[in-house]
């Protein structure tokens, strides 16, 4: 066991506080729900804090650190597009201002209002597939991280996964999803302390000069210059930046867990303000973990599994007590991320896919009891699937690219439909179907191709997906307007 009794005690106390506060806050659950629905949304600082907590889990640190470990300083480029996308959307109100004015509450709702119910079902199916494949690697990666940090032998990975998922279910039961606002506050305190401490203490232990020397020795100019050998040839060159910027603009406006913060804010200005300042926070969310990966390379050498480098370094450099504090913060962060992802993806599968198909076939509304059974059933199926996928699916190439590409199954089509539906009067459902379908090909190609092609062509397939989706929107809409003209339903 790598953790000391002090570390274990800190983790135990922290988890008890989280579960106990969740239990005590249960009576406020309905109150908070009503509160948010009533439009009296949480304050700006609390909103910012809550957004960061939802979007940080153990897996976030693992995939960023892997990039730093495998590519050196150039991987820091990955932190910029998301920051720029938040600032761009926050400052300009691109898409979100119009969605807010249309009083749209969810993105699928936009699809059914602007295009058709069929388009909504189609994007719902792709969202469920992409989201569950994305979520499918979480348990394996995080259980490995926990096992490395605690010293639990590798063969117990299945047990770690099951214990984690049971904890998530308990957390959700004890009012976790809603009282998360309170626990987020506590969680963010630990997470932010951990992020700053690991960076400063890591530099102190490993040495700045040693870190720079390691990168130059291992990678040469390729580890420092993102445009080496040319702007278009590097893994993190211009193509990567363009792809990532488009991806994150779509992510901000189309990923329900993020965009709901805008939809529930009292006016679009408050939402835009949260987005703008999130840009700065998201820059650090990427830069610091990538840098930890580089520190791991300097400290452990290049022979370690890149997905395990961060956890192995942390156990070796962090002093007793601090390790427990950071581990507690990470566990709590992952539980809230798990809970929200499990609910989001299983509810999309239940409501936007299964319920819609049953309604289309039978022509009747489902009773709330049946809906509840379907929701619970999909949650069980998703849980079993992610355990199976984690055990048997081997990740090739960067974990970061895998996660982005599974999201790409629906993201290019979503962005093309949002831009077309909001800013182009001639867009229509044929354009929407074509955009979604064409945007689907590059990520499927990526998921099927072997390494080293995955890493070499990821960026091209990434921006190519968006290009195809936008072309699909233009060509499909034009085709429909020429052969069967009909304007779209809503007043733009």
């Amino acid at each position, binding site marked *: 066991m790598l953790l000391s009794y002090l570390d274990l005690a800190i983790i135990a106390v922290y988890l008890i506080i989280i579960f106990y506060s969740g239990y005590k806050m249960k009576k406020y659950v309905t109150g908070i729900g009503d509160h948010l629905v009533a439009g009296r949304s949480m304050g700006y600082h609390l909103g910012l804090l809550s957004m960061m907590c939802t979007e940080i889990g153990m897996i976030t640190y693992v995939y960023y650190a892997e990039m730093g470990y495998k590519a050196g300083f150039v991987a820091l480029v990955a932190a910029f597009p998301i920051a720029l996308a938040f600032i761009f959307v926050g400052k300009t109100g691109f898409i979100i201002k119009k969605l807010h004015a249309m009083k749209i509450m969810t993105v699928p709702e936009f699809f059914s209002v602007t295009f058709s119910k069929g388009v909504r079902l189609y994007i719902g199916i792709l969202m469920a597939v992409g989201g569950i494949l994305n979520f499918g690697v979480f348990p394996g990666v995080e259980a490995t991280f926990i096992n490395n940090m605690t010293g639990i032998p590798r063969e117990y990975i299945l047990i770690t996964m099951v214990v984690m998922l049971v904890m998530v279910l308990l957390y959700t039961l004890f009012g976790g999803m809603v009282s998360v606002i309170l626990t987020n*506050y506590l969680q963010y305190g630990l997470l*932010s302390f951990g992020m700053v401490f690991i960076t400063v203490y890591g530099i102190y232990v490993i040495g700045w000069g040693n870190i720079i020397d390691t990168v130059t020795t291992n990678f040469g100019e390729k580890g420092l210059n993102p445009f080496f050998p040319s702007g278009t040839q590097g893994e993190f060159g211009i193509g990567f930046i363009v792809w990532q910027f488009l991806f994150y603009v779509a992510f901000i406006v189309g990923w329900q867990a993020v965009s709901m913060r805008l939809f529930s804010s009292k006016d679009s200005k408050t939402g835009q303000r949260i987005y703008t300042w999130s840009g*700065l926070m998201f*820059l650090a969310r990427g830069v610091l973990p990538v840098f930890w990966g580089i520190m791991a390379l300097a400290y452990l050498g290049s022979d370690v599994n890149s997905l395990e480098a961060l956890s192995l370094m942390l156990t070796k450099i962090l002093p007793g007590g601090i390790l427990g504090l950071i581990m507690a913060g990470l566990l709590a962060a992952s539980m809230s991320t798990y809970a929200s992802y499990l609910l989001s993806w299983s509810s999309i599968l239940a409501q936007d896919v299964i319920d819609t198909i049953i309604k289309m076939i039978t022509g009747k509304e489902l009773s709330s009891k049946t809906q509840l059974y379907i929701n619970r059933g999909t949650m069980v199926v998703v849980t079993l699937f992610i355990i199976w996928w984690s055990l048997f699916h081997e990740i090739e190439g960067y974990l970061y690219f895998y996660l982005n590409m599974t999201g790409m199954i629906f993201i290019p089509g979503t962005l093309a439909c949002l831009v077309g539906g909001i800013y182009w009067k001639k867009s229509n459902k044929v354009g929407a179907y074509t955009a979604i379908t064409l945007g689907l090909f590059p990520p499927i190609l990526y998921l099927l191709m072997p390494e080293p092609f995955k890493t070499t062509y990821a960026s091209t397939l990434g921006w190519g997906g968006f290009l195809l989706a936008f072309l699909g929107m233009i060509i499909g809409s034009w085709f429909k307007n020429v052969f069967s003209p009909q304007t779209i339903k809503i007043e733009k």
Partner: protein
Amino acid sequence: MNEYVIFWTVVIVFSLISFTFMSFKVLFKGWPELLEMFDSIKKDIASRTKESEE
């Protein structure tokens, strides 16, 4: 290559400082917002209980 080393150093230091500053700010200013929110929820629950009693 030195210019890249300087650039990435600035990026890391800037991220670390801005993140520390922003974290202190959201934690410091978020606490009164949290208390205010729970206060308002308590009032909502109390008024609803009163309405249902009436």
